[in-house]
């Protein structure tokens, strides 16, 4: 017989309603006679109810890791362990999923089995950084659980001042907008820096996110230190017959009101014969028209990626978006893929050497200025990196001529090439 269950009047109220209830799920585990996790889950419910009653959290951190790694586990010890002793230790293993979060039922069931044996039976698919969060291991079970996952081909993700677990969108696996091989980019990048992930020694966290097109379904500009977004350089593709079909179905007014006038650069106009004219020179690849007329319009053929650095959320200077440091990079040949990995390495090195403690890339760029960062990582400045040039005359333009010469030289080289 299991231990006595706690009263959970408040949590119970979260069992009704049409949305699947995590409380009902946890209760199932707490009712799971004979399972190693049953008592843990009974006390977990008790502590959680206590939080609901008192409106306070009762976990504190600590230090837990697996052999050979410094990070990847989020240790949790209860502050109310006296009242809820069985959930006194409730650590999370952050495990990196396959890129794009694809699973078959076989691997899912295997993971469940491991977590039934060594854990709490509670799993989150997924955390906001993209990890599978196996939540609720006792200290003495963490290594065993990890070992089994690791043998299945899974590895711990990031925690602490380290390269973190990354994310890539479903992209090429299913999405016609994809301009990049998202999973390949993500795996190349993260897997190259596993040492910086597993043995946290950076100034602070560093996150990769990859979206296949400017719709940026991974919110990468806003949440990644290193955001990679697919785009294209040539003209978008227009299937004029499909355009006509779309207009025939929706009406001209609908197309004008919902497509033409919504283009941020007025790059679209409707011809008299119901074909579409695209000013590709001024199209900024925002995706809107392509999203609306999904059969008629698609990205061009000369695909590649834009790279933005420095996105993050609120801590210490307020939310920051990433900013463009590579307007376009072709990613076709292995050589080209090597280049993006090299760039990531240069950026991580620069970050490691120049960021203050607990300072993110975005904060560092804010502090030292984008131009210094660009120079520091060995790139050339480009007007695509900015929305507009400086407004304030407060700058020492002492060696203007030298800097201007660099530009002229580059342009001459480009013309020669």
């Amino acid at each position, binding site marked *: 017989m299991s231990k006595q269950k706690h009263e959970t009047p408040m949590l119970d109220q979260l069992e009704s309603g049409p949305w699947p209830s995590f409380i009902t799920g946890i209760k199932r585990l707490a009712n799971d006679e004979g399972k190693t996790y049953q008592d843990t889950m009974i006390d977990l419910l008790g502590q959680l109810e206590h939080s609901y009653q008192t409106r306070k959290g009762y976990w504190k951190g600590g230090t837990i890791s697996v*052999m050979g790694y410094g990070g990847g586990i989020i240790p949790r010890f209860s502050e109310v362990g006296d009242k809820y002793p069985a959930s006194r230790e409730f650590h999370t293993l952050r495990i990196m999923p396959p890129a794009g979060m694809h699973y078959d039922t076989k691997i899912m069931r295997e993971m469940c089995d491991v977590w039934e044996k060594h854990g709490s039976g509670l799993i989150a698919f997924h955390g906001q950084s993209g990890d599978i969060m196996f939540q609720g291991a006792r200290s003495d079970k963490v290594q065993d659980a990890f070992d089994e996952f690791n043998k299945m081909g899974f590895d711990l993700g990031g925690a602490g001042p380290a390269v973190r677990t990354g994310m890539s969108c479903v992209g090429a696996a299913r999405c016609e907008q994809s301009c990049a091989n998202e999973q390949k980019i993500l795996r190349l990048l993260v897997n190259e820096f596993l040492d910086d992930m597993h043995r946290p020694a950076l100034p602070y966290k560093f996150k990769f996110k990859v979206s296949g097109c400017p719709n940026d379904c991974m919110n990468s500009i806003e949440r990644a230190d290193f955001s990679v977004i697919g785009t294209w350089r040539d003209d978008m593709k227009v299937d004029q017959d499909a355009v006509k079909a779309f207009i025939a179905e929706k009406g001209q007014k609908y197309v004008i009101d919902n497509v033409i006038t919504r283009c941020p650069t007025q790059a679209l106009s409707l011809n008299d014969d119901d074909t579409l004219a695209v000013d590709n020179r001024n199209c900024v690849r925002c995706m809107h028209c392509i999203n609306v007329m999904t059969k008629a319009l698609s990205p061009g053929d000369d695909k590649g990626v834009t790279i933005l650095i420095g996105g993050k959320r609120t801590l210490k200077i307020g939310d920051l978006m990433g900013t463009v440091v590579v307007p376009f990079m072709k990613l076709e040949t292995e050589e080209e893929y090597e280049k993006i990995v090299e760039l990531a390495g240069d950026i991580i090195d620069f970050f490691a050497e120049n960021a203050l403690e607990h300072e993110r890339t975005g904060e560092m760029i804010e502090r030292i200025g984008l131009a210094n960062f660009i120079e520091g990582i060995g790139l050339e400045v480009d007007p695509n990196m900015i929305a507009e040039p400086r407004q304030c005359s407060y700058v020492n333009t002492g060696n203007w001529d030298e800097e201007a010469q660099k530009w002229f030289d580059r342009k001459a080289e480009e013309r020669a090439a």
Partner: protein
Amino acid sequence: MPRTPIESGVPDPFQYMHPVMAKNYGMWKYHERPRPGVLCHTAKSGDKVWTVRAGTQRQMDLYTIRKLCDIADEYAEGHIRFTIRSNIEFMVSSEAKVQPLIDKLLKEGFPVGGTGPSVTMISHTQGWLHCDIPGTDASGVVKALMDELHEEFIKEDMPNRVHIATSCCQINCGGQSDIAINIQHTKPPKINHDLVANVCERPAVVARCPVAAIRPALVNGKPSLEVDEKKCICCGACYPPCPPMQINDPEHSKLAIWVGGNHSNARSKPSFQKLVAAGLPNNPPRWPEVAAILKKILHVYKEDAKDWERISDWVERIGWPRFFELTELPFTKFHIDDWRGARRSLNSSTHIRF
């Protein structure tokens, strides 16, 4: 002998991917949405794949997961994936399998929806269930709200897709969204001076404060910290490195609602969300005050916005004064930014709607 980990990193997804997706990788042509919750993607090869999207509670017990696996095995060719918002997706290679799959999902209590112009699952964070610094329980807030937004999830009748996120402290692990519901502390931290000396690396805490409001101090003869309460912006940044700086408070850790974030590049450039309501009580288990305002905002947006206008596009067109008018939310001095770079948020023009 201790086992050396295999540093295998991010696993190759192709071993788990639905075979039609693997076969047509990078070769898709267009997609359609035959009904809410269902996507149909057509490949250049002519192959098609139907995706059925269903809501989950993210924090899942083994039973839930195994049930989803059973469904996948019986109705959906044995493959699944999860979206960034913890929705589950089942892929099938024939249209005939769609309806039975949906029926089964509904029967088992998994709402089908979240595609196109719907309100999709609220992305959320750890809260009281696991985190060491939370002001509320994100999973609970989200369960409560998704119960209220069930109709908006299973239908596609919003002007454009709506992404909502919650965060259980001001650090904001929750992604940004059209609408964000976040903890907002309203009192400076109470310092438990007895613990500071032992637990906190004091210079690190001092450095962490965004407004330099923390000073080392001797309290009752022991080294501790003191906070300049006039300066303190109640952000809670000092709390993780120094738990004695108690920022969480049952009464004064409130909820705030932020509106108009936009992270896709569609139409306008990505932008952050803006504060619209704060001071909402942290009221478990169903947070009714938050739900009421959230629903009001969604209702007004649905009524007033044009097709394809995200919330940010809509407010941009009608202006913030009208947003406050339509939602009947109060406008206060707190809405006027005074953080760094605040000036760009002021109206430096005569562009005014009367």
